[in-house]
Structure formats: structure tokens, C-alpha cells
């Protein structure tokens, strides 16, 4: 029998900066602030940290982080690619490293500024395209929202989903953000009428189907379950972890395979549930990657909360809303209403649900699903109390 990492490690520290548009500090500085806060939150010292896991898109390199935060000898470091698909994977890689003795205390993080060139590759001109993007961008399919809108239109056509379903997603997350003082949209209500009247970005998607543009950084500390028991905070155990690149996948423009609507979630879910004592019906709360609203029905289907084509209908009757819904989702507001930091805020909110400290706390939640980008090579975590 394969020995998995089930419950052998835990998230024990959470740290973050403020979320804003146009923060002065560099991405490296923001990363160091979040990591430093996470180490303090765990009740550990910088020299206890010997493992690092980050996004390959990160601007501040491991050596710079280590030199700034004053880490000691680092024995594990890892980078994950594919932008928003990487969030849960950084935590998962750190957990695997801790579980196998490659390090004892690891940090994973994401720092991002919306104005940074690396954050908006689609806005760069002048270069001729090589590789995958030459098959879509010349025609004006320029931005991530355009690429996902193409899938969304097809999804709506095949399964009868409507803008009302997408509004269910946007409104649920906004309601959660309205309870979260850290959220960008804390004081901004959103009505269905406002959603329906909003300007188009890429039809069938309007302004409110998009995530926010945010400057900020978040970090978590991961260590062994054994060590976690002696630390300051209630551990959020890493119960299961998976990554996926589905067969014949193409990043973002996944139109070139037999069934483009069977996205990375489906593959990721298979291993995740195989390694888990919980199944979708047991999961009372979720943090689902929401760069764009249609990713939610796609993820609900992929992770098995409903059947294929039923993801849109799943959003009806307030089922994504705290406190009464079947599956309160993105309980801090998510990427669409708290902050968009490549989905890393979802990891911290998942850990808060396990600590019992969310502003939309699901009482007695035993576990929480956290997912990273649908539409790109992805990853997911099942956290346990």
C-alpha cells in the first residue's frame, strides 16, 4: 500500500499584507512581510524555516527571501508553474518535503502586483508569437477573460447555463466579502440588477464575472503534524493533495482536445478523493479558484459535488452562500470579491475554516476543499480540522 501524506503535515501559520491597488512596496518586500507574519503567527522563528515553495512567476527569488527574512540553512526549495494553478501545489510540495524529511518547517507564498509586467503577459506587444498562443491571440483572443469566455459560452450552450447562474456565483462571494474587513469589496454591495447592467468585458462575461486586480501577498507555514501540536495555532491538517495536467491539455485555450469542458479539475479530483477519507458529499465548505465566475460550475462538476452539466444548477437556491447553503464557497470573498492573489487567499481561508476563525465560519466543519486554477495545470488540497 502506498504511503500517502495524509494528515502528516499541517498549516500552522498564516500571514498576509493589506490588499490594495498600487501598493508602494516591491513584490519581494510584500513576500517577506507576509512570510514574516506567517512565521510569527505560528510562534516559530525565521531560523526554524528550512523549506521554501513558491510560484515560478514569483518576482522575489528564494535566496532573496531567505536573506531578507533571516532564514537559516534551507534544505528544500521548489517552484510550481502555470500561474493560478500553482497555489495549492506550493503547499502540497512543502507538505511532501516535510513528510519525507527533506525539511522540517516550510513556507509557501504568493506576492503579486497588478501593474507588474510579469502579471499581465497578454499586455505585451511587439514580439512575434511562438508556441501555443499563436493559435489564438492574433485573432484578438488576448486576455485570460477572453480565453475562459470561449469555454463559458460553449458550457452555457451545452448545458443550458445562464447569466443568472453566473450572477449566483458573483453575488454569493460578494456577500461573504461584505462580512470580511480585509476584503477589497468589504463595503461594496452587489445586486443582481447591477450585475445584469454591468459592462461587458468578453461576452458572455461581464465586469462582475471577473476577479479583482490586487496588490498583496500571503504566506503559510507548514510543518509536521507532530510539531504542529506544540505550536500556537490550531493546525489545519493537510489531509490530501493532488496536481493535474489532463490529457491533451492546452493552457487556458484548452479547445484542442476531444472534450474541452472536462478541465483539469476532473483529473485533480480523482487522485484527491482517492487519497482522502472524505468524499464530496462530506465536504461542508469549499474555496474554489475563481479568476472568472464560470470556473465555479466547472469546478463543482470536476470535484464531484454534482454531475456533469449540473454545476450551474448547483448554484441555485443560495447553495454557495454562508450560512445556509449546501456548500458555502469562497467564504472570505474569493478572488472575485476579497482579493486576487493568484488564488493564494483561498488557501489561507481554508486554514481559517479549520481553525474556526473565518468571518463566515461553517460551524463544526471537519474539512475544507481548496482548489487552484481551473483552465491551467492545477492543484488542490483537502484540509482537515
Amino acid at each position: 500500500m502506498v504511503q500517502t501524506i495524509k494528515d502528516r503535515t499541517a498549516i500552522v501559520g498564516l500571514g498576509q499584507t493589506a490588499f490594495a491597488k498600487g501598493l508602494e512596496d516591491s513584490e519581494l518586500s510584500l513576500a517577506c512581510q507576509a512570510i514574516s507574519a506567517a512565521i510569527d503567527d505560528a510562534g516559530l522563528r525565521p531560523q526554524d524555516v528550512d523549506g521554501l515553495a513558491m510560484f515560478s512567476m514569483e518576482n522575489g527569488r528564494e535566496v532573496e527571501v531567505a536573506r531578507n527574512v533571516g532564514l537559516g540553512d534551507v534544505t528544500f526549495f521548489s517552484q510550481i508553474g502555470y500561474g493560478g494553478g500553482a497555489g495549492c501545489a506550493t503547499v502540497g510540495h512543502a507538505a511532501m518535503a516535510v513528510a519525507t524529511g527533506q525539511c522540517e518547517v516550510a513556507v509557501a507564498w504568493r506576492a503579486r502586483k497588478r501593474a507588474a509586467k510579469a502579471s499581465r503577459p497578454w499586455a505585451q506587444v511587439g514580439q512575434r508569437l511562438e508556441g501555443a498562443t499563436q493559435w489564438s491571440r492574433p485573432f484578438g483572443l488576448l486576455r485570460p477573460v477572453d480565453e475562459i469566455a470561449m469555454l463559458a459560452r460553449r458550457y452555457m450552450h451545452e448545458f443550458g447555463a445562464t447569466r443568472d447562474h453566473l450572477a449566483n456565483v458573483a453575488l454569493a462571494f460578494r456577500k461573504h466579502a461584505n462580512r470580511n474587513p480585509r476584503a477589497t469589496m468589504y463595503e461594496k454591495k452587489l445586486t443582481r440588477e447591477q450585475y445584469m447592467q454591468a459592462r461587458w468585458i468578453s461576452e458572455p462575461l461581464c465586469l462582475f464575472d471577473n476577479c479583482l486586480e490586487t496588490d498583496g501577498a500571503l504566506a503559510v507555514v507548514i510543518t509536521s503534524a507532530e510539531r504542529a501540536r506544540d505550536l500556537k495555532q490550531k493546525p489545519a491538517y493537510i489531509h490530501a493533495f493532488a496536481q493535474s495536467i489532463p490529457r491533451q491539455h492546452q493552457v487556458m485555450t484548452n479547445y484542442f482536445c476531444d472534450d474541452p469542458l472536462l478541465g483539469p479539475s476532473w483529473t485533480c479530483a480523482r487522485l484527491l478523493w482517492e487519497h482522502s477519507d472524505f468524499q464530496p458529499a462530506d465536504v461542508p465548505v469549499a474555496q474554489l479558484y475563481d479568476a472568472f465566475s464560470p470556473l465555479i460550475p466547472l469546478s463543482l462538476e470536476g470535484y464531484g459535488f454534482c454531475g456533469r452539466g449540473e454545476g450551474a444548477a448547483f448554484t441555485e437556491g443560495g447553495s454557495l452562500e454562508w450560512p445556509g447553503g449546501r456548500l458555502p464557497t469562497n467564504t472570505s470573498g474569493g478572488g472575485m470579491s476579497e482579493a486576487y492573489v493568484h488564488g493564494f487567499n483561498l488557501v489561507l481561508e481554508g486554514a481559517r475554516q479549520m481553525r474556526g476563525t473565518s468571518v463566515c465560519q461553517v460551524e463544526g466543519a471537519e474539512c475544507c476543499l481548496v482548489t487552484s486554477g481551473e483552465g491551467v495545470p492545477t492543484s488542490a488540497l483537502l484540509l482537515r480540522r
Partner: protein
Amino acid sequence: MATGFVLPDPEDPDGQPFWQGTARGELLVQKCTECGRRRLPPRPMCFVCRSLRHEWEPLSGRGTIWSYVVAHPPLLPAYAELAPYNVITVALEEDPTLRLVGNLVASPQGAINEIDPSTIRIGEPVRVVYQQVEDVFLPRWMRA
């Protein structure tokens, strides 16, 4: 002359024969010489039999609209001037799992913003046309 549009590198090692084809008015798809499986976008190895040998097969240039979007600003300046414009994905007649992204135009040299987006339907039959932008011939689509 630079137009401000984002264009492929016609010398991309995998894409070059495709772009040479469009310049001649041909829609070419890569086909494995060993097992006959077609593949798109072009790439070095056949994902079915792992052969590196391939040929380029001309297709009919007919297909149906698989999905579409209508893009609105913020966009790169050259595209913003045309917005709102459509972008369609076409399922090709020979194998509907082979798809190409393009635009629906009203005439062979028509602009990508001429067709009223509210008239576009998934499943509509289309046929390819080629439009030169700088040194590249982009496949675009007219109603068949």
C-alpha cells in the same frame, strides 16, 4: 509596416508549414505518416504512436462554429479600435475535435467587427478565407 496586431512568427518551427499554407490559400493540418492521426495545433510528435514523421494534409476549409466571444475593452490599442469584435472557434468538417480560433467576417476582406454579434450562433456552418496582416495570412471565416 507594424499594425499593432499580435502576430505569429511565421518561422515558428512547428507552425511554419501551416503559415506557409495559408499564404498559398491552403488550410493544412498535420497528419501522422505512421498512424494517420491528424493533430492541431502542430507539434513534433504524434500523441497516438509517437512517430516524428508527419505530412501536411489540405483540408476543405469548412466547419461549424463551436463557440464564440465578443471582446470589449480594455484591449491592446489596435484591437480596441475594432471592439466590440467577435472571436470564434471553428470545429473542422473532417474531424470536429480539430478546432481553430479565428473571426467571423462578412466578406473575404471584411473586418472582424462587421457582423452583428447577436446574429452569431453556435453550430453555424462557415468556410475559411485568408486575410493578410503584415507578412502573415490569417485564416478567418465567412458564413457558408
